[in-house]
């Protein structure tokens, strides 16, 4: 009886529910399942409600005429708001920029994070302090992060990068003008690298050291160790980092607003910034809501692709 339950309940990664318990156990099984479920239902339901209400409102606003500057005019518009948002010449560039931004930052933080985690995996003098310094950028408020990079680092006259370029005899780069999206990517990646590093550092903690030693004794080179031991172990944490970062990076806004203002042209405009233009410059809540829902659709599409690629590691 006991063993059956263990076998049924203990299979990780199995799709859906395991085989139902034998009928002899049902009274016990039922009692110990419905009670917790009943207790937990309120939590899940209230969660659902809290998310559903703003979502419903956004949906409603997206279908009517709702401009803050013209209160009282709330006629039904059908899909006109969506059409307006989508026919913006910057719409498709914004989608591309959003995907580029998310993708690049993820690639940079995952590879950088793994490399850093591997670098500090084994002890060396000052490791504790290094860990502490490395996670600090994550705590900086995004607006400050943006201003920091724009003025201190990237300014082509008195920025630190400009000084370094001049030191090597090269002409300083005008980051904001010539590489706007790249500049934003650098800022955002700098902020999220500590997060990824931390996750990977902790994942590495739980690696099977004996297996590693054995492999080394057998003469495995570092690249082989990497491929057959480290990376598979990190699979789950990579999936988590990618998932969480995707969620946040899809709606990056503060950095763009503070530095490039979406420009030059629409080179660094992403979907969130496009929505902002409608919501807080035009005060058109109708179009902004339409844009927000389109952003959610885009996010879901991205999520589906992600699940296909790394889904098996998520569970």
């Amino acid at each position, binding site marked *: 009886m006991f063993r059956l339950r263990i076998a049924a309940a203990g299979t990780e990664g199995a799709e859906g529910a395991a085989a139902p318990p034998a009928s002899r156990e049902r009274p016990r099984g039922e009692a110990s399942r419905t009670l917790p479920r009943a207790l937990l239902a309120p939590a899940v339901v209230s969660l659902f409600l809290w998310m559903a209400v703003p979502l419903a409102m956004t949906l409603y606003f997206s279908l009517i005429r709702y401009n803050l500057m013209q209160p009282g005019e709330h006629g039904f518009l059908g899909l006109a708001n969506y059409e307006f948002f989508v026919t913006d*010449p910057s719409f498709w560039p914004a989608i591309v920029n959003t995907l580029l931004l998310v993708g690049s930052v993820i690639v940079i933080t995952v590879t950088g994070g793994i490399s850093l985690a591997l670098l500090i995996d084994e002890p060396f003098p000052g490791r504790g302090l290094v860990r502490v310094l490395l996670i600090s950028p994550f705590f900086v408020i995004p607006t400050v992060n943006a201003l920091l990079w724009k003025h201190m680092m990237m300014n082509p006259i008195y920025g630190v990068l400009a000084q370094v370029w001049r030191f090597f005899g090269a002409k300083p780069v005008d980051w904001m003008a010539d590489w706007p999206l790249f500049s934003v990517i650098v800022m955002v990646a700098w902020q999220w690298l500590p997060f990824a590093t931390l996750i990977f550092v902790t994942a590495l903690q739980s690696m099977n050291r004996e297996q590693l030693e054995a492999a080394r004794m057998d003469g495995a080179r570092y690249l082989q160790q990497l491929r057959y031991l480290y990376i598979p172990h990190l699979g789950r944490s990579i999936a988590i980092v990618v998932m969480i970062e995707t969620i946040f990076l899809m709606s990056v806004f503060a950095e763009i607003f503070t530095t490039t203002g979406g420009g030059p042209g629409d080179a660094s405009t992403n979907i969130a910034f496009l929505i902002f233009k409608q919501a807080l410059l035009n005060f058109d809540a109708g179009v902004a809501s339409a844009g927000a829902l389109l952003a959610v659709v885009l996010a879901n599409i991205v999520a589906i692709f992600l699940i296909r690629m790394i889904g098996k590691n998520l569970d």
Partner: protein
Amino acid sequence: MNLRSAVTVAVGLAVAGVSNAATELVIATVNNGHMIEMQKLTKFFEQANPDIKVKWVTLEEGVLRQRVTTDIATKGGQFDVMTIGMYETPIWGKKGWLQELKPDASYDIDDLLPAMRQGLSVDGKLYAAPFYGESSMLMYRKDLADKAGVKLPEQPTWQQVRELAAKIHDPQAGVYGICLRGKPGWGDNMAFLSTLVNTHGGQWFDMGWKPQLESKPWKDAINLYVDLLNKYGPPGSSSNSFNEILALYNEGKCGMWVDATIAASFISDPKQSKVADKVAFAQAPVAVTPKGANWLWAWALAIPAGSKKQESAQKFITWATSKDYIKLVGRESGWGSVPTGTRKSTYANSQFLKAARFAQAEKRAIDTANPNDSTLPKSPYVGVQFAAIPEFQAIGIAVGQQMSSALAGRVSVDEALKLSQVAADREMRKAGYYR
């Protein structure tokens, strides 16, 4: 809801003076130097009016505008006094969102500079009291001009400015001929560019409200701008706004600068500027016409219509924009720090004139700016460097982004103007100005 009504009743009672509880005024304001000064001096107001307490909410300009607009449009009632500009006042005044201001005789409303008073009124009714006003002008390095043997007239032409910039441009010595705004934004690069277009004989919209962004004046103006900055401007211009250029100028890196008159007070302050004693002032450069060559802007205090704290709010506003307040600042912080650009009496004050070398140039600039007549061809809108319509913010930033792009060399000027025209046209059509 019960709590809310109770609070409202309590506040109402307080204002009516039935109870002894103090009225609390929440004031939303922008974080420029003068406003910060006002916060420090609030204690004088509170001493004179013991039944009023003042709480400040200070925000950056863009955020402030978003916050107060959302609040007033949804009748949120979060703020009792709002700091708004010349852009919002005509729009909101017309919609009836603002309380008309009727100060008494001791306020001396005729002392307000006519341009300011006009810019903040609708149909002769004053809806916001100007606290600080500015125009734009040319600030240049006298030492460099002398060395080049050039003497600029009081109102130079852009041609003359270009020639001087070419002569003093010397990147090896760390001096750039001319610095101008480039960061995208309707109040950033577009503020300057609008005046440039005006003086070349252009306008934002014709009498049928159709955008004119591909007209000859626009092409002439933007080509001049891009050419001037690419040849004689500092690198990184396309993301420079007021602060960035101020930093450069104070370090001695700009030979010339056309921007807000308040810049003059910073660059001639030896505590901030390395070139404080080497600066000279002239009116904003002109081309085809002097109309609209220099902009007009004021930060003003206004009261949302239907506010329950009108009496106290009016008291505060009249205090903060009065002659006495200006004298107070002069006493407490020095005459170089008084908020300028609002009253004729300020410019007649000898102490102020002594402390501010730029005063006359500034007054002349403000006097010649007229939001009702700032373009050569007749325009349907009010405003020198903007059009006071709600759609302008979104249009302004879209065009600003394109101009910044042209400056950075990513698109040609013609292409940038074409894209701008498309963006402006879209917004105007959607808003129903024409089909």
